[in-house]
């Protein structure tokens, strides 16, 4: 860290003994999302979780691209950068390398993060900088008034696809896993508690955390996820992944997921044919299993997996960079500009 910055860091006040409140994380800007937008809940949960992280506001940065979701940083009373479309992950990467001590958050959308920003996203994931990515997936382009997105279901009729979209959608979790991500999770705008735990876990993960959040756009794609979020259906359509626990779901927890060979299938725990012991047990640390589980996402007859698919440790990019620098300094001493200018072949002219 440069001398100048160390200066400033010193000024950081001693963590005050009284814990900040969610309110402390609300900025003075009026929130400009449509009434009823799922983004409100995500903002609320995030602000609720922040105090528990024990990180002072001034050491947090929220970086976003462009989109309704990307307005997020304006509403957080932290440092923020509402950048250009698709580039939040790249900007955050540079900032994180320059300032590894900051708590870095990227807020992006299914268009911002997976369409125009797809490349920076997959490269961030493989590099594994310690950045938390919250991807608001509403399966639509909100800000531009309703075109289909890379996560929209095939055949979707939108302004730009009056005959239905032809693209097969990304499964963001599989894309992240295929990009060698170290932390991949999915949660729901209408399940505050679950979202809070996931956001906390993402913050605690040392490395890039990829969190897909199903978010309702009530203006252009209303109800896209109601199947998974509403009382009457959710118990049978969603399965919550919990580390070390068997995969059970259903209103009375009467159903489970078992591996038939290596293919997941739903079995009933009521007929007595199958018991808990036959079920697949979740293991966040297993990359192979993470692929198996995320591959369930679009498979007919299987519940939608929600929770943490994978959470493994791997060297963190900016931390390794710092290590290389201290190593170089030990080995060669602090760089001396005068010495450098006069290094190698030089000669004097009288």
């Amino acid at each position, binding site marked *: 860290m440069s001398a100048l910055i160390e200066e400033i860091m010193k000024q950081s006040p001693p963590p005050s003994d009284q814990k900040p409140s969610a309110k402390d994380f609300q900025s003075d800007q009026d929130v400009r999302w449509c009434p009823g937008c799922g983004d409100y809940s995500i903002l609320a949960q995030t602000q609720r979780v922040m105090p528990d992280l024990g990180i002072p506001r001034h050491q947090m940065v929220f970086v976003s691209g462009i989109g309704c979701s990307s307005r997020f940083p304006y509403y957080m009373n932290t440092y923020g*950068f509402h950048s250009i479309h698709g580039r939040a992950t790249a900007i955050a990467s540079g900032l994180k390398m*320059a300032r590894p001590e900051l708590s870095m958050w990227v807020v992006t959308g299914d268009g911002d993060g997976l369409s125009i920003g797809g490349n920076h996203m997959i490269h961030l994931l493989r590099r594994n900088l310690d950045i938390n990515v919250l991807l608001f997936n509403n399966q639509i382009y909100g800000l531009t008034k309703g075109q289909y997105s890379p996560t929209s279901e095939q055949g979707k009729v939108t302004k730009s696809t009056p005959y239905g979209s032809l693209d097969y959608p990304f499964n963001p979790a599989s894309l992240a896993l295929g990009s060698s991500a170290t932390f991949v999770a999915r949660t729901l705008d209408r399940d505050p508690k679950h979202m809070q735990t996931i956001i906390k876990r993402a913050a605690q993960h040392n490395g890039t955390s990829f969190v897909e959040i199903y978010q309702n756009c009530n203006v252009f794609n209303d109800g896209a996820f109601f199947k998974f979020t509403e009382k009457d259906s959710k118990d049978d359509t969603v399965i919550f992944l919990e580390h070390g626990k068997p995969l059970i779901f259903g209103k009375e927890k009467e159903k489970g997921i078992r591996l038939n060979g290596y293919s997941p299938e739903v079995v009933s725990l009521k007929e007595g044919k199958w018991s808990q012991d036959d079920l697949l047990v979740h293991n966040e640390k297993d990359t192979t299993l993470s692929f198996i589980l995320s591959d369930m996402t679009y498979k007919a007859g299987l519940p939608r997996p929600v929770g943490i698919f994978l959470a493994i440790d791997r060297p963190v990019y900016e931390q390794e960079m710092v290590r290389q620098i201290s190593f170089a300094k030990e080995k060669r001493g602090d760089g001396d500009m005068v010495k450098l200018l006069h290094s190698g072949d030089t000669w004097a002219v009288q």
Partner: protein
Amino acid sequence: MAEKTTQNLDEVTIRFAGDSGDGMQLTGMQFTNTTAILGNDLSTLPDYPAEIRAPAGTLFGVSGFQIHFGSTEINTPGDQCDVLVAMNAAALKVNLGSLIDGGTIIANTDGFNDKNLKLAGYATNPLVDESLQRFHLHSVDITKLTGHALQSMNLSSKLVDRSKNFFALGMMYWMYNRPLETTIEWIQKKFGNKPDIMEANLKVLKAGWNFSETTEIFSVRYEVGPAKLAPGQYRNITGNQALAWGLMAAAKKANLDLFLGSYPITPASDILHELSVYKHFGVKTFQAEDEIAGVTSALGASFGGALGVTTTSGPGVALKSEAIGLAVMVELPLVIVNVQRGGPSTGLPTKTEQSDLLQVLFGRNGEAPVPIIAAATPADCFQTAFDASRIALKYMTPIFCMSDGYLGNGSEPWLIPDYNALPDIAPKFRTEKEGFFPYLRDEQTLSRPWAIPGTPGLEHRIGGLEKQHITGNVNYEPENHEFMVRMRAEKVERIANDIPLAEVEGDVQGDVLVVGWGGTYGSIKSAVARHRLRGNSVSHLHLRWLNPMPRNVGEILYKFKHVLVPELNLGQLVKVLRMKYLVPAVGFNKIQGLPFKAVDIEKKIEEILKGTK
């Protein structure tokens, strides 16, 4: 042993040419370092193909390195060469045109077998037919002689072949009376861990020298005395290296970490390579997934309080242009280095050109003013990068630092600057909460405060939507937008308060003013000098700052009958001068991927002078 006479020369131009696999660039650099250390002034021009190692003997595979050195002031790599070292037929074919009549050819006969001749498109062997009578031809079987020199070591013929360039180098060292030490030391350092390759190269180098000393073929050798350079400590340096060091020097002075976000591209990659070595200077280099990530990561680093830099060439600048617009809007320091190459599109990736001036001036959506500074010589890249960083930090603005393939790869002796005498750069991070507003501007520079994440109490949000004056909040009000657009323009204009007035080389009024920018400095300077010697009223104005321009440029232009603007493009600076100052400036344009020859410019000036008579 044969009698050898010695002649004195003021200046000489030598061109080494061979296959891309023959190590001509290395040979040239060695000759350059040795020559530099002898105190000659010099200028070099590497010229290599876009292919890595094109098949041996082909015309498109020829790689050349030209060095112009002398006891007088040297401004260009030389219009033509006096000596051509041709390792094979293709090398001769490609380069013969640049050899002066009566010049010397040293040809490796082994490179002129039937296959070579066919590939080069020679019906008959030029070494034996009469076609080279205009020249002093020395045919030497360098390959065979190299083999002899290494017999004792029984190396693979591949290894033997690899060191034949040192034989040629040895010959040239003898012919121009240069010591072997520098190269010997270099070989020992470079191949320290490959003993037999080291030994082989040393043997061959000396063999080349001895061969010339003992055999009849060279009756004369030449003496080129040291140049009268300003006293001081010197080193030889390429433009890319100087540019990298200039950035490092600025960061050090400013007490900031240097962050480079870059994606490799010819001819800019060497800056990335150079900077990645200096981890012990705290330099952070990031090879991004593409140019957009290169520039945006650098901007992110700037937000965090680093000196953010991105390096690229023309196609990369095109890709970065949207992000540079963001930098204009968020008003953070950012140095964008453009080492220009032949365009449009992929164009001529390894050749030089000056055709990105209008792109960097105007290539962004909306009114997005960005200052521009351009280096004039390889060594000047140091000061240029330093100044670019200084202005970026003082005015909180992205800035273009312009170089080109010729400057980046070319080299010259450099009077090593006194680091401690360099101007201080004192960026301030805002820390006082009292009265902090993200867009409350400094009254003099109009720059906004730099409040970096981690500073208690200064939490704020920036972004690419229009900002409200002072508060920096998103704002769509018509008047505010106009105000901010004009404010951003005015801020860049004010940089003119911070840069020296333009200085004319020669009289401040007269018949012809030759205006240039960037890497054409040397050739224009030589051309103008020749005219001034003949008493013609010709002066030279070389613009270091293209945006904003020094305040006195207009006055200067108006004092001359004619304004001539030589550029390696179809006329870009000339357009800017005409639009800004309404002067009937005329362009002189060459766009062949090569620097100007001084003589071309000299002739063009001649024409104009005739017109005036």
